[in-house]
């Protein structure tokens, strides 16, 4: 099949993003149910974290199992700063902390690849977990942190699920826009070049170190912000919420959705967070089905389930679906 990569006009983009914002905010009006609102917020957060991983894995081509660790760091940063620090300071701070640590974690990726890198990042997650459990005087140890307050900006409190979802949705929108911007900039091109052919990229002047570290830092920062959003969503956090298994889940989210495609992890997050809800009848079996689906997708649809969307698009319009990132 001869794929091309058609461009998207500025107006289509504008409308597209406006639509995206509406969709992200829609649960507030669509769902009466607090439960569905909660799920929507969770989905948004998963989208953020998965998109972060997609930058590392899908674009820069570096595998990372550290997302759960960063989610934890972000969540604890937010929770421990507590109500003393205003939300709009704590949130970026959580992101920043993870950005810096992410830079550090990027360094191994300069020396090792694939399974070695997987192990290093896996080790990172485990060690974060151990610290959260054992350094009780700071982290509350296995008991976790209670009564994490939801943000209030000025006199306006965002406590109710619908109010809080507004914040989650806006942050998600902003971060996705950010990722979209970065990936469509010349950075995105450099990332892809590193993924496609590291050696040649370097011989065309691409500074591997800077770009790889940046990919890791950005991806990790996304996870950090996700954590800062998830802590007040639960109102309570403990280390078990950020154990290794979570990292694997995010990896599968990206893969099932579509690696290296902007909309991939978004789809993946929805599948993980929302699908079980609709698969009520198979609730108990969902994990089995999902894992099996992941395996099958890896085998039959290397481009992930977005390629199904592409297929539909092609059937309907007869044209190739334009990719959101160059």
């Amino acid at each position, binding site marked *: 099949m001869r794929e091309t990569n058609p461009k998207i006009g500025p107006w289509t983009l504008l409308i597209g993003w406006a639509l995206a914002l509406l969709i992200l905010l829609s649960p507030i009006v669509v769902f009466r149910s607090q439960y569905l609102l909660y799920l929507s917020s969770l989905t948004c957060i998963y989208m953020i974290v998965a998109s972060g991983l997609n930058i590392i894995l899908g674009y820069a081509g570096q595998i990372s199992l550290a997302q759960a660790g960063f989610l934890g760091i972000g969540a604890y940063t937010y929770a421990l700063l507590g109500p003393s620090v205003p939300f709009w300071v704590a949130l970026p701070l959580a992101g920043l902390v993870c950005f810096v640590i992410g830079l550090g974690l990027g360094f191994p990726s300069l020396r090792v690849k694939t399974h070695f890198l997987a192990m290093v990042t896996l080790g990172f997650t485990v*060690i974060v977990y*151990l610290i959260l459990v054992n350094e009780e005087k700071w982290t509350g140890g296995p008991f976790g942190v209670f009564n994490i307050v939801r943000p209030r900006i000025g006199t306006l409190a965002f406590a109710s699920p619908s109010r809080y979802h507004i914040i989650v949705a806006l942050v998600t929108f902003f971060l996705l826009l950010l990722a979209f911007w970065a990936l469509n900039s010349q950075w995105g091109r450099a990332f892809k070049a590193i993924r496609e052919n590291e050696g040649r990229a370097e011989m065309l002047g691409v500074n591997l170190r800077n770009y790889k570290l940046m990919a890791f830092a950005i991806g990790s920062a996304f996870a950090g912000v996700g954590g800062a959003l998830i802590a007040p969503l639960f109102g309570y956090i403990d280390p078990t919420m950020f154990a290794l298994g979570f990292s694997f889940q995010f990896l599968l989210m990206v893969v099932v959705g579509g690696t290296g495609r902007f909309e991939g992890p978004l789809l993946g997050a929805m599948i993980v967070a929302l699908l079980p809800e609709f698969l009520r009848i198979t609730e108990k079996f969902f994990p*089995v089905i999902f894992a099996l689906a992941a395996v099958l997708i890896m085998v039959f649809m290397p481009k992930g389930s977005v390629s199904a969307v592409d297929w539909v698009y092609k059937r309907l319009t007869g044209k190739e679906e334009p990719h959101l990132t160059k």
Partner: protein
Amino acid sequence: MIEQLLIKGLSLGAIYAMIAIGFCLLWQTSRLVNFAEGEFVTIPAFLMVLFYSVLHFPYPLAILTAILLAALLLGLVMKKTLVDALITRGNTPFVVTTIALGFFVRDFLTVFATPEAMSFPSMVRQTPLHFAGAVFSSLDLWNILIAAVVIIGVSVFIRKSKPGKALQAVAQNREAAVIMGIDAQKMILLAFSINAVLVAFSAALAAPIYMVKYDMGNELGLKAFYAAIIGGFNQVRGALLGGLLVGLIETLTAAYISTQYKSGFVLLVLIVVILFKPEGLLGTEEQ
């Protein structure tokens, strides 16, 4: 005290080593890393329980059937399905796929078998032995013995037998071997089968200590992976050393350094090795 720590460490390490060697064979022949290796231990363990505790086979027969079935399932079936489908796409897709596969096995067993841990009798009666102030179980010696026999068996097979030599040839230089008329695919199949037998054996040894449970593989798989990396991915003897090292490190850390950061300590060793000697302690550099 130290003596028994050493013996215990070794008997654990022996189990890790067997699995780690499986890793290495796969890597050498197919350049793939199997992240579901832990579940590859769980599956034969469950088969053993099925045959012994449910279908009431005699013990040795149960073990044997389990091992054979495992070899078929984790060797032939695995090769014909996932490996053939993914090998052309390099390592990372395979890593991700096997991670998913691991999820599948665990969830499948919880839902369709049991979420609870099951005990499984050991091959030998566990009688406490006393030796130079150290107390340990006959089981430990047995583990070390079996592991030694199996490992020696495998390495002899690789060195001496015709298919073994072919396997080595592929491991050292795929292209050259193929030109020499060796069927690389057959060799990969062989490697997966040997791996299956190794994990099945380790399952038989681990079951009495680890208990048979859907997630028993998590720890085993990871430790074996640490072992393979620390020792050296492209050397069977490296994996052996790595396995024993990991066993000793974790036992000694718990005894002398910290129980809370026990698993962290092994990881630090691992990360240091990865960063400063990626080829592993006994491994050789790969071009």
